[in-house]
């Protein structure tokens, strides 16, 4: 599945999130292709993604998309990301 991680600029925190999502996906046995996007281009990037992962504040900006959004509060907490992934992929 295609996962897009979104942060404000698309270069700092989303990169960190991407690495932790990759780790979480591999421990769940998911075959995931993870990319990053900034909030400005996220709506376009969402078209080709199966799941968006972002923070609670930015999730409010992305309402009205057909792509499901998973909210993660602590980007460094792999177990929280795993739980969010599990919930959205079932």
């Amino acid at each position, binding site marked *: 599945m295609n996962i897009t991680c979104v942060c*404000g*600029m698309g270069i700092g*925190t989303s990169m960190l999130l991407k690495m932790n999502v990759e780790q979480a996906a591999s421990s769940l046995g998911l075959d995931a292709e993870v990319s990053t996007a900034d909030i400005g281009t996220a709506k376009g990037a969402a078209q080709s993604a199966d799941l968006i992962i972002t923070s609670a504040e930015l999730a409010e900006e992305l309402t009205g998309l057909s792509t499901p959004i998973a909210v993660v509060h602590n980007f460094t907490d792999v177990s929280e990301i795993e739980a969010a992934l599990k919930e959205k992929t079932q």
Partner: protein
Amino acid sequence: MNALVAVLDFISQEILNVPAYLIGIVAAVGLIALRKSAGQVIGGGLKAAMGYLILGAGATVVTASLAPFGDLIFRVTGAHGVVPTNEVITAQAASEYGTTSAYLIVLSFLIMLLLARFTPLKYVFLTGHHMVFMATLLAVVLSVGFGPGHSALVVAVGSVLMGIIMVVMPAFAQPYMNRVTGDDKLAVGHFNTVGYVLAGALGSAVGKRSRSTEDMKFPQGLRFLRDSMVSTTLLMLVLYLVFAVWGMIAVPKEELMGVFEGAQTSDTYGSYIMAAFAQALQFGIGVSIILYGVRIILGELVPAFQGIANRVVPGAKPALDIPIVFPFGPNASLIGFIASFVGGLAALALIAVWFGPAWGMALILPGMVPHFFDGGGAGVFGNATGGRRGAILGGFVNGMLITFLPAALLTVMGSLGLANSTFGDADFGWFGSIVGLLSRLGAAGGSLTALGFGAILFAAAWWYQVRLVNNGWLPASERAALQEANKAAATAS
């Protein structure tokens, strides 16, 4: 023998001397070290190299948009106008200093790992774009100071200094960071640390009884500013139009019509204003292209660097980009951003009426990206130690810092000091200025004094880490105790 020399010469001149290829090779080596498949290694290396070339394409667009803006400001005010944006100045410096800075990134990363492995400063700096900026900055100021023909020395001295600054700054911020996050698992790795520590310290000084920013409702109408493409372009539009209208008042028409040569369809004010409008949009477009390139490079480099760091220094604290603290104070980050912007305008006014005429200081116009991230961070740190008063004062002082420090930095950047952009964050300003001044002593004296300066910083951070951070010192403990008491009283009543 001649054939061997020719091959080596070809490799060093035509491949290793081209920053884009060098970055591609570094990314490929990193991916090989992570045992990725051949396809991923080739794809990753190719993408990193192309990301670097995209950076250059974006720089052309931004430079074309900033040149008439600088011209306009000069005609109107007689001063040199500068919009600090790290991405822009890095892209502008890439053709001349790109190779040196690429070597600096790799070598300094290894030095940082050694320092984290063998000293108490156990931090792994993972903010990839700030590593790129710091490497470019050091390549520029050391090359300018040492003079031509010392590129090996620039790499050697620069990577030691950069390795040091990457473990030192997270250490200084750590007690404040612990107050922000409430535990001690994360470090901040963002080269505006002086602004954050200052905001935290000011907060402890003024905000003992000030309530937290998070208790208040904040207008949702400002949320669109989170989108950097929107906020950067909007601000540039305002700045561009302010100076364009000012020009219509202050500058004779014949002279003014030459500013947007080629972009204007006719010699009318209407055409002139719309040319200014179009140039402001071009700036936003150029920055977006550069960011796209940065995103591609970092997408390949950062995971490789992190994979290597995890193996060499297990258990070290990751020093991360500043937005990692925004969830600990969403209101504080917006208040800090606005306060920082106001502080930047106040400092700009001081430069325009006072420092500029007296010392020839450049007009540092507010850059939206640094104010948003640095000011936001300062707001969160200020709020953690001093509530609303801390967030506002911390943001305001941060805004003044990131206006005065870039002005100082311009004086040591050689021919790039005349560019219409510069590095925006506080640590680039003070560290770059000091290293730049020391390196003016020449290759021998400059490298010795600069390394001495690095050693002093390192010793100070070591002492700070062992005496304060490792002993669990937290700032603003009085305020925290008061809040605990209030909470207890509230639940009791």
